[in-house]
């Protein structure tokens, strides 16, 4: 079964862009990819490839695209399907004056969890990310690694079937990174599908079994990680060595 199916997505941040406009007008152009259930799938690409735009489209935050997005068989936008996915953005998207528990309580309520479910799941994800001892402290007092782990914990709160991660280990120490890797592998072993967007090739090679490589809004490779010997070399061969200041 396909956890995620993207078909011919075209999107521009410029609402007046028309079909005949150049590729540079589009963040995504005829973008298609699939993620099989139960996989950790890497979404790779240099800056400006369209990875974050794609994440925003999948999560229903961005509208106004052409093409189709299906999540676990439900065509988006579908509010019910939103509850089967979770998104941990690249930025630490937490309320820093609130405590970890208060953040979890808030996002749990937004995910339609009952009070009891929020309490139980909060303790579970806090334990999973090693934050139980600091759960009553304001997030502003957390280190970068702790904030990253809480960012992930919030995404895991409502037990999604498909987890979208946008650079989940940026700016964290090796210990926190290891905790995040172990958490992701455990979740995947339990059946969760994960779409991982990252610039760290070692991370993608270590965690993912399939990969989509994108550049300038288009898919340039879609296949299995086992088919690639050296991911970094492969990445540079496909996307070039020129700087991407976009």
């Amino acid at each position, binding site marked *: 079964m396909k956890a995620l199916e993207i078909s011919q997505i075209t999107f521009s941040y410029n609402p007046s862009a028309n079909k005949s406009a150049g590729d540079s007008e589009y963040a995504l152009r005829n973008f298609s990819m699939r993620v099989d259930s139960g996989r950790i799938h890497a979404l790779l690409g240099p800056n400006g490839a369209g990875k974050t735009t794609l994440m925003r489209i999948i*999560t229903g*935050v961005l509208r106004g695209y052409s093409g189709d997005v299906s999540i676990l068989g439900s065509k988006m936008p579908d509010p019910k399907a*939103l*509850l089967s996915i979770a*998104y941990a953005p690249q930025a630490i998207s937490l309320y820093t004056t609130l405590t970890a528990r208060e953040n979890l309580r808030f996002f749990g*309520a937004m995910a339609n969890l009952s009070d009891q479910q929020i309490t139980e799941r909060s303790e579970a994800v806090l334990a999973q990310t090693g934050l139980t001892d600091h759960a009553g402290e304001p997030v502003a007092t957390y280190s970068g690694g702790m904030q990253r782990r809480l960012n992930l914990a919030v995404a895991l709160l409502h037990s999604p079937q498909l987890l979208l991660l946008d650079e989940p280990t940026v700016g964290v120490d090796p210990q926190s990174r290891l905790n995040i890797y172990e958490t992701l592998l455990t979740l995947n072993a339990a059946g969760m599908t994960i779409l991982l967007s990252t610039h760290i090739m070692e991370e993608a090679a270590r965690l993912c079994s399939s990969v989509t490589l994108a550049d300038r809004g288009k898919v340039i490779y879609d296949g299995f990680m086992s088919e690639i010997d050296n991911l970094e070399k492969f990445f540079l061969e496909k996307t070039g060595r020129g700087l991407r200041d976009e």
Partner: protein
Amino acid sequence: MNLRKLKELIKKEMLILLRDKQTILLLFLMPVALIFFITLALKGVYTDKIYERKIPLVIENESKLPKANLLEEKIQSNKLIERVKRPQGMDNDRIFEDGKAQALVIIPKGFDEGQKPVEIYFDPVLDTGYKIAVRSLMTSLTVEVVMGIDNLDAVVANLIVEKTKSNKAFPSPLQHTVPAYAIFAMFFIAIPMSIGFLKEKNDGTLQRLFTYPVNPNLVALGKIIPYYIINVVQFLLMMLVGVYLAPYIVGSSFHLGEHPWHLIPVTLIVAAATTGFGVLVAALARTSEQSSTLAATGAILMGVFGGIMVPYFVMPVVMKKLALISPMYWAHQAYLDVFLRDASFSFILPKLAVLTFFALACFYVAGRKVKWI
């Protein structure tokens, strides 16, 4: 509407707001401090403008004869006059320059004989109204002495009757500042409101929120309601300060008027206007710097034009006309209707209609301009 989600959105916003000490200082302590300082500062202006003030006056009786003595006695016992002594060796110019007196009356030798007139000198910068008042007083008292009349007012009582109504136009300094700076602070809610919105937009929490099945209108309500509540609490607090605390500090009392329950609709509509302004700033600003500049400048300009900083009744005609463009003017006048004029609700209603229109216009423009992501 999902009330549970709305409750959590409100709770989250309240927690963020109440944990921000700077915001609390801005919204609650700033207006209290302004009420006290401005009330004390305005007391002088109000005393000059509205209330009777005693004129410090030097009387020099060079005659010492019966009529001169009687005139001296009548002048110094008048309630408009505060008799002061000329300091040793100080000439007339110096007396005025040093502010020792504002007028000087000399009853010369030969007054009793009708040979010399009473001389009056005024401080050149004394308000014309006071000059006229003192001159009229001197004329009346001199006529009484010269003509042998005991009380000129009693003689003309059948000819002139004063029928001035009680003061309904000029608030006391405290009556002005309590609603004025409560309104001013209520409009300042635009700063934390817009900064909070932009922060959520920029740090990605708003984007994350929209990955859940949450309606944007619910999110908007969850942002507006807490600030609306804070606005009402701000006003209540200012009322408590005005009624219970201010009398001990500024020495005058604050009255809620004959119909204090009119404060409920007035405050609810003023709070809608102030929250509307906050929503508008949040929707128009693109950065925190823009939002604080826009909100603070907007509030200060509305305060300047709206009779908050400079009381409406001392404004020149042009400024009084300009005041009509400021929602703060309508809010302040609505409160003065309650506190000062004991107005009926139908009298206040047009002002509330203007404020409602302002609030709706703000919400409409904000709704058109807002970019959630």
